[in-house]
């Protein structure tokens, strides 16, 4: 078998050859983000860009590429400040190393956090090239200008290509505060660019986790315990397997005691020379599993527990006025309960990882969202020295939060350590759906009284769901965390002078994790459908109703302080809502009896309004059109932003229409795509997207398009005469 080249050009490759200019600086932009905190924040300088004497610019992308187009966007930012020729830029994937700063590709913040460091890296390189040219010509640098991969001296009509200048420039000091280009001179930032991997993808050459092959590598097909917490007690290997020369053996892994975290679960690994041999033997094994406290876990019972939780007062996160007494004494109030089920990431690429342990060192090639956390987790679990652990991300065949959790990588490391040869772990879809870190199910209860003008006079909202913290931090951390609630609940834009906001948590018998948009999915659902119900009760258009509620409001404060420059501004929320009203021809279509639904949500510091139109004659209410307006502040690749909104509509429709996971006796009941129903081509509507031109700071793009989709669909179905549907999935 051939090995795969990952085009992983490291800094060392450049430093060993002389005459290469290498610059880069990293400064962490502070911000409170506890879920992702992993000790990787650092002020160490690092390298994002290198220019060779051949003029080739290598931009090192330290974030993982999972379809969000980050490799392309990072290169655009550097290329712009550098005044480089796009055709001469290549993008390399960085391995996990704190010198790059945070590499946790999660939370829609690659551009938000690294826009300035990347601009500075490009600008510093440009200034050094200009200085090198000026020195060689004996002129002042201020008389020279970089453009199109060349430094020009207009007065003497002299010019020098970047490649010619790289050697001299590499000997200069790196400017600490290079002058950045002004916005009106940007020629790559904000423009549309085809993704750098597009051609490789379309010709089958793009390399994902399972495409990595090392010499003498064996395959490990995993058989995981049917219930979280169980370990294999004994395993019977059939005689047919023993006679198969391509079958190597089995290895058992016990469930890790203590907090679940990113630790491997109980399993039997079938080691074979090829994948199919492993799959075949895996099907024939007879395994006895140990008992587990989770073996009675039942999702229907759990949902009922969540329902009961919102009937009683929860932890109070926000209280003004006298909502409780007003609601208890009200003659008439509006009350609704909203429910959402367990969901799975189900990236098209099931987890797969290659590890090669040699002596006291290990190298990993795997589709991971955070190579530093992966590295640190290996160090913590397997007692390697940090400098002896190398982790390089491959391309990720979808991730959506799943591949932040390196449990499958730890399996590969452990098996390679035992077998003393490279191992590629391969999960099947059934493993992926049983052992996801699931999107939490939720129940929310909303109650309100309305005044004579139709506006709320008292308001109580309660949410109940299992916290991610109970899985990734400690089993006793069952209460929803502030950052989970600030995903659309404690930072709700729907305010009332008598208001109580309450939350409760319950521990589930399966792993809970973050899925694209996280708690915003269920909180945006409850809030936007409830507002639609209030508007209906008040006899008002749901857009007008929101605008009336927001009259005179300025900034929304959640449970956590806002990041500087990223305050939640009602004006920006109002703006995307007004734009989507225009773009969808809302007023005319509503007047003409079309079935349209609207939702608007602020998440990951961005603002998204979505209108969906459904076919009212279709019993399944097919979505025919979607209109999305995104305000993500300053954006880098306009086409990527549009693509992310398009994808978010489809991703949101999967959750809204049919996706639902259930557990009986601790075991998943929908273990492949015949049970877990994902949106397909016939489900996909025509989608139009408007990007707001903005000079605000860059904010999130990958996630914020998802939350408005499910409530917009519910509201559209109501308009279509399908009744008020308060429980996902809707169809």
């Amino acid at each position: 078998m051939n090995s795969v080249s990952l085009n992983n050009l490291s800094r060392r490759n450049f430093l060993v050859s002389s005459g290469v200019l290498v610059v880069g600086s990293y400064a962490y932009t502070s911000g409170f983000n506890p879920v992702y905190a992993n000790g990787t924040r650092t002020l160490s300088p690092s390298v994002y860009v290198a220019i060779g004497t051949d003029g080739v610019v290598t931009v090192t992308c330290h974030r993982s590429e999972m379809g969000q187009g980050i490799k392309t966007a990072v290169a655009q930012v550097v290329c712009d400040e550098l005044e480089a020729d796009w055709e001469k830029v290549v993008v390399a994937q960085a391995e996990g190393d704190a010198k790059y700063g945070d590499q946790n590709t999660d939370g829609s913040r690659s551009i938000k956090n690294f826009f300035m460091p990347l601009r500075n890296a490009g600008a510093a390189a440009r200034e050094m090239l200009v200085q090198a040219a000026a020195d060689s010509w004996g002129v002042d640098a201020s008389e020279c200008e970089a453009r199109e991969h060349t430094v020009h001296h207009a007065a003497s009509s002299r010019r020098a290509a970047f490649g010619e200048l790289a050697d001299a420039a590499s000997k200069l000091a790196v400017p600490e505060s290079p002058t950045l280009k002004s916005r009106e001179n940007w020629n790559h930032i904000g423009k549309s660019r085809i993704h750098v991997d597009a051609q490789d993808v379309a010709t089958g050459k793009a390399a994902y986790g399972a495409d990595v092959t090392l010499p003498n590598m064996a395959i490990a097909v995993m058989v995981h315990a049917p219930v979280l917490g169980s370990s294999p007690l004994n395993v019977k290997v059939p005689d047919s397997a023993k006679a198969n020369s391509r079958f190597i053996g089995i290895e058992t892994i016990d469930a890790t005691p203590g907090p679940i975290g990113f630790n491997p679960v109980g399993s039997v690994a079938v080691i074979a020379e090829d994948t199919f041999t492993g799959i075949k033997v895996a099907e024939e094994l007879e395994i006895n599993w140990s008992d587990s406290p989770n073996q009675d876990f039942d999702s229907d019972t759990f949902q009922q527990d969540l329902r009961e939780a919102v009937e009683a007062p929860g932890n109070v996160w926000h209280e003004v006025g006298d909502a409780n007494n007003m609601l208890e004494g009200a003659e008439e109030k509006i009350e609704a309960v909203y429910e959402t089920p367990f969901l799975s990431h189900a990236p098209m690429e099931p987890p797969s990882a290659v590890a090669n342990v040699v002596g006291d060192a290990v190298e990993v090639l795997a589709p991971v969202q955070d190579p530093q956390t992966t590295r640190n987790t290996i160090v913590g679990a397997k007692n390697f020295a940090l400098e002896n652990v190398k982790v390089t991300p491959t391309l990720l065949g979808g991730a959506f939060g799943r591949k932040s959790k390196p449990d499958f990588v730890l399996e590969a490391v452990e098996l390679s350590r035992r077998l003393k040869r490279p191992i590629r772990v391969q999960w099947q879809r059934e493993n992926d759906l049983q052992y996801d870190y699931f999107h939490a199910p939720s129940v929310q209860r909303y109650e309100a009284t309305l005044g004579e003008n139709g506006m709320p006079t008292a308001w109580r909202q309660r949410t109940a769901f299992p916290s991610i913290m109970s899985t990734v931090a400690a089993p006793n951390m069952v209460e929803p965390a502030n950052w989970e609630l600030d995903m659309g609940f404690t930072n709700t834009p729907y305010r009332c002078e008598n208001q109580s906001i309450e939350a409760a948590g319950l521990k589930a018998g399966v792993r809970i994790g973050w899925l694209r948009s996280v708690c915003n999915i269920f909180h945006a659902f409850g809030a936007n459908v409830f507002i639609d119900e209030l508007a209906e009760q008040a006899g008002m258009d749901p857009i007008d109703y929101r605008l009336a509620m927001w009259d005179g409001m300025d900034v929304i404060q959640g449970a956590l302080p806002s990041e500087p420059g990223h305050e939640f501004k009602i004006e920006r929320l109002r703006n995307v809502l007004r734009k989507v009203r225009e773009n969808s021809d809302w007023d005319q279509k509503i007047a003409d009896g079309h079935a349209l639904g609207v939702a608007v949500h602020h998440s990951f510091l961005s603002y998204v309004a979505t209108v969906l139109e459904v076919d009212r004659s279709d019993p399944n209410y097919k979505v025919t059109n979607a209109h999305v307006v995104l305000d993500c502040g300053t954006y880098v690749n306009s086409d990527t932003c549009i693509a992310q909104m398009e994808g978010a509509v489809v991703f949101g429709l999967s959750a809204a229409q049919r996706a639902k996971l259930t557990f009986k006796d601790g075991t998943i009941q929908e273990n492949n795509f015949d049970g877990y129903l994902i949106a397909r081509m016939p489900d996909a509507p025509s989608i139009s997207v408007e990007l707001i031109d903005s000079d605000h700071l860059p904010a999130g793009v990958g996630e914020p398009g998802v939350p408005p989709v499910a409530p917009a669909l519910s509201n559209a179905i109501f308009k279509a005469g399908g009744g008020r549907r308060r429980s996902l999935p809707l169809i």
Partner: protein
Amino acid sequence: MSITVNVNGVEHQLDVDENTPLLWVLRDHLDLNGTKFGCGRGLCGACTVQIDGTPTRSCLTTVAAVSGRHVSTIESLVDQQPDLIEAWVDENVSQCGYCQSGQLMSAAALLATNAAPTDEDINVAMAGNICRCGTYSRIRKAIRRTAEARQ
């Protein structure tokens, strides 16, 4: 046992279990990694190849069943329908890209038999290929763009 398969115009003599799915023969024995594993049960389309021009889920097709027939994979598409690949790139279709080999092989089979597919034709031909990133609207555009350019 020894089985002969023709993949992308090349005859291969293989010593594998005749029940081995074509998917794993391509990936593990022929180093043709463009064809992807997604579900193992013919439900997602990531492993789609063409057998005598018909789009087929290679995870459910045994190597014995394709003996004597012509298998084409994504690696050969650039020779068969380069304009389709160009349209895919120009429309910036792919996000994570993992499903796109299968999407392209289904789309190529559609265009080979239907020069002007309607929206409904596209729905039917592509319904077996899941894209979790949700690139469907661009896949539709790339198919139409290719069909229109060929007119």
